[in-house]
């Protein structure tokens, strides 16, 4: 009881109450906390998919036989390719691929069924638009795979290789790409919202000139900042819950790990993102400046984190650089807890790094807070 009374009489409570009252009156902030995270999650989760299907395929079938038609139907069976055109000749096909009307082209030679019937191997020509290297690679692999299967079907004794890999996908058996993306996007959303919202609440005092007055009160820098952080932290945890609920019910994420551990570690990351925002706010002079600089920082943080593009596909230098990216650690934690359900021990290096980030960012901000008027 005594403690509670002391809390309500403390400076810290006066500061916090002021922040809460300001936040409650700030519709824009509430909007910023709810609308963009929802939209970002839906867009990244649903639209951003590396799966390749319904690629337009052009076919020049010089053989015009039942075998060649069978081969084509084997290719389009899985919806990876749709036959979009039957150009008259090879030149026309080449032209269509060059124009971008077709992603891939297949030329079946006139000797196709004759060669196969004689037991000889035959050559088919494949043209692939290599502009989108990723799609091209997948298309190539798929065509190769279909040809191998087709060959085996015709000639069971035919051995392509002595060792054959049997791949089993762990954790994401259906290879649903949204499972990969959504945990990353939760991290992305927390970074963007956390840094933006915190920098705006801090810079506003500077913008309207109340900061000077606040610095003249006996309140210490840490009290002022902590009073700003606490209500934002609670609100951003609401964002974590919102994102988790969407992950669970919209994207059917499994949440295999301890959910409370996930919440606690997300809370740790929320502190990091608030720290980024406050640090930017003490460096900038106006609201406009802080919004623009946060763009400058947030884009590389997101790109390097592996939230969207896999870190393994980056050049070595950037892979090393990504260790300095707090979001990378959070994304690793989120994926491990949501998809794999690992124990906390396995995540210790990531957790310690995040903790370090939170402490360093917030303490620099507190130190800068008082001297920022100069």
């Amino acid at each position, binding site marked *: 009881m005594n403690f509670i009374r002391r809390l*309500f*009489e*403390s*400076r810290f*409570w*006066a*500061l916090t*109450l*002021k922040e809460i*009252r*300001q936040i409650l*009156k*700030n519709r824009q902030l509430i909007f910023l906390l709810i609308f963009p995270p929802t939209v970002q999650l839906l867009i990244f989760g649903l639209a951003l998919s590396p799966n390749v299907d319904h690629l337009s395929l052009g076919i020049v079938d010089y053989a015009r036989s039942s075998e060649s038609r069978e081969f084509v139907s084997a290719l389009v069976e899985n919806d990876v390719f749709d036959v979009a055109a039957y150009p008259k000749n090879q030149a026309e096909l080449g032209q269509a691929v060059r124009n971008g009307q077709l992603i891939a082209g297949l030329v079946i030679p006139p000797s196709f069924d004759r060669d196969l019937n004689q037991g000889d191997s035959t050559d088919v020509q494949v043209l692939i638009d290599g502009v989108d290297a990723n799609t091209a690679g997948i298309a190539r692999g798929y065509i190769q795979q279909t040809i191998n299967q087709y060959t085996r079907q015709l000639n069971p004794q035919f051995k392509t290789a002595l060792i054959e890999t049997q791949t089993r996908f762990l954790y994401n058996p259906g290879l649903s790409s949204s499972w990969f993306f959504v945990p990353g996007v939760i991290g992305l959303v927390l970074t963007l919202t956390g840094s933006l919202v915190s920098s705006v609440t801090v810079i506003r005092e500077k913008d*309207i*000139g*109340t900061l*000077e*007055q*606040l*610095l*003249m*009160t*006996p*309140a*210490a820098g840490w009290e002022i900042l902590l009073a700003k952080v606490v209500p934002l932290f609670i609100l951003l945890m609401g964002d974590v819950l919102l994102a988790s609920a969407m992950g669970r019910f919209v994207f059917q994420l499994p949440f295999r790990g301890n959910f409370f551990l996930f919440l606690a570690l997300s809370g740790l990351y929320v502190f990091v993102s608030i720290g980024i925002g406050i640090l930017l706010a003490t460096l900038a002079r106006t609201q406009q400046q802080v919004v623009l600089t946060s763009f400058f920082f947030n884009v590389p943080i997101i790109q390097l984190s592996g939230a969207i593009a896999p870190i393994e596909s980056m050049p070595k230098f950037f892979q090393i650089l990504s260790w300095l990216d707090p979001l990378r650690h959070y994304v690793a934690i989120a994926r491990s807890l949501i998809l794999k359900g690992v124990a906390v021990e396995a995540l210790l290096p990531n957790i310690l790094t995040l903790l370090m980030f939170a402490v360093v960012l917030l303490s620099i901000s507190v130190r800068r807070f*008082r001297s920022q*008027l*100069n």
Partner: protein
Amino acid sequence: MVDSFLAHGTEAGGSAPSATIRVQGLHKQYGAVKALCGIDFSVSPGEIFGLIGPDGAGKTTTFQILAGVMEASSGEVSVLGQPPREARLNLGYLTQAFSLYADLSILENLRYQAGLRKVPQADFRDRATELLARMGLSQFPNRLARQLSGGMKQKLALCCALIAQPRLLLLDEPTTGVDPVSRREFWDLLAGVAADGVTVVAATPYLDEAERCNRIALIYDGKIQQIGTLAELQADLALHRIEVRADALGETEAVLQGAVSRASSALVDLQSFGDRLDILTPNVAQAKSEILQLVDQQKLAIPRLEANEPTLENVFVSHLRQQGADPIYRAFPFYRKPKALSTEAAAVAISADRLQKCFGEFQAVKDVTLAVRYGEIYGLLGANGAGKTTTIKMLCGLLPATQGGMSLAGETQNLHRAEVRSRLGYMSQKFTLYDDLTIRQNLEFYCGVYSIPQKLHREKIDWVLETCGLVGRENQMTGSLPGGWKQRVAFGASVMHEPDILFLDEPTSGVDPLARRQFWRLIRDFARQGTAVLVTTHYLEEAENCNRLAFMVAGEIVAEGSPTQIKAAQPGQLIELVTAHTQRASDLLRQQVEPWRVSIFGDRLHLVLDCPEQELGPLIQSLQGAQIEIRAQRPLPFTLEDAFIGTVQRAEEVSP
């Protein structure tokens, strides 16, 4: 330019040749609120007409109706012989907020305004060159508007309003927050514009400025209470002012205050200043003998008495008091023991020793040395950019000094420790309240952050609300309050914790004269309880409330002392001239003496001369040589503003 304006002046009106503005029975209602209830006045061509009144009296509404921005609820308004809406192209309207585009240059702002008002390109170049030269802005036509000082911004805004050669200028508190030197220049320019035949209607919270109008209307409660020239208003008041200077000023004040409240006394009103008391009385001789008798009874030292004309502020305050418009005064609920000032007389609250501040190459503050004792009100005065705000920020620990020593509440190290700061009160020039909180929430916040015991919150907050006249409106959003009211709440918020040292940076900017008087009464109460007060202001009449003053020019203190000492230290004499052609006389005199020595006050000229015995004769001869008849001349005592402008200009002449 002069000719073209004159041409305008003579052709003004047409069907109504006598009046530029004619207002009859003007009413305006906002819902249930009556902003104006029956206003009548008319303004002649080439006249400078002043509107004065407390905050919320209806001044801005009147301007908006005259400018055709708003429709009247009822009544007749004719501007230049037309309804205001149709006269819009012939009038310029300047509001409190700078109506400039901060990211455009001086020339671009002018061109934009000219474009809006369809000024032909050929005319634009000539007019722009001439206007900028006249306002002293021609050296840097490409400087961005936001890089200009407040005074220069207002001059540019005036240029923008004048570029289309309007026949009527409406100015709604154009000089709020502008320093005295720039303000005086601004009004000199207005006098010139009016002499060219442009009619000027201006509202101002600064009554010394209003004295420069040809006629003045006092507006209160939506009605015009009084209208006339300064002399007419003074005569109408039928009171004289006696300045009382004494060594034991506090005791003398207490004795005389007792007399004022007695009906039989010849003393009608008493106002306390930093080193003098002002008494209003209908009969000077009777009042003087009464004062001497009272003082003698109490065995106090004999005061020095000086009879004078009442000021416009006396007129304003006396009249509004009769209307019951005086804000409620309630003593602050002090819980701190008053400092025993006699024993601690030597205790210095704020001191600075050769304080310096450099921003890069620029030396903002040079060698400032000052000391403020507990119980003392110390004023820091200077033009914009003179280094006042930088000095105050260093003294209260917000900015580190580049060089020099200082102490605050007896501490010299770590001035921003919480223990030191809890003994300070600070009210900055900018907004110190949160617009998005209610008035009560703001006050609760400051109570909490200064750790005022919970059980005292209610009493302190009630005190602020009552003093500000906001009882019953405490749940209103602070952002919706007019500027003057916000300042009052902000003052309340900064003193609730009974600080030992109070920093006030332009506390009364935009506050009306009645509220300003109340403000200073409260500040004096705090000083009497032992609080050291350091205050900056642009309003020199108000600086009379300080016990000691320092004038700053270009980062240095150039004069220091009590208001009386500073005025007495001014060399020379102020002379008032009444001539037949005020503007021509002024132009002629300005060719012979430095321009700052001459200024126009309505139909009179104020002239500052260092050696009047030798200088005045030749000047008068040259006026008479130019066929300008001199109707009257008399010496006047310096006001603090005269002293300020003289000091600043002389200091700038020495080091340009």
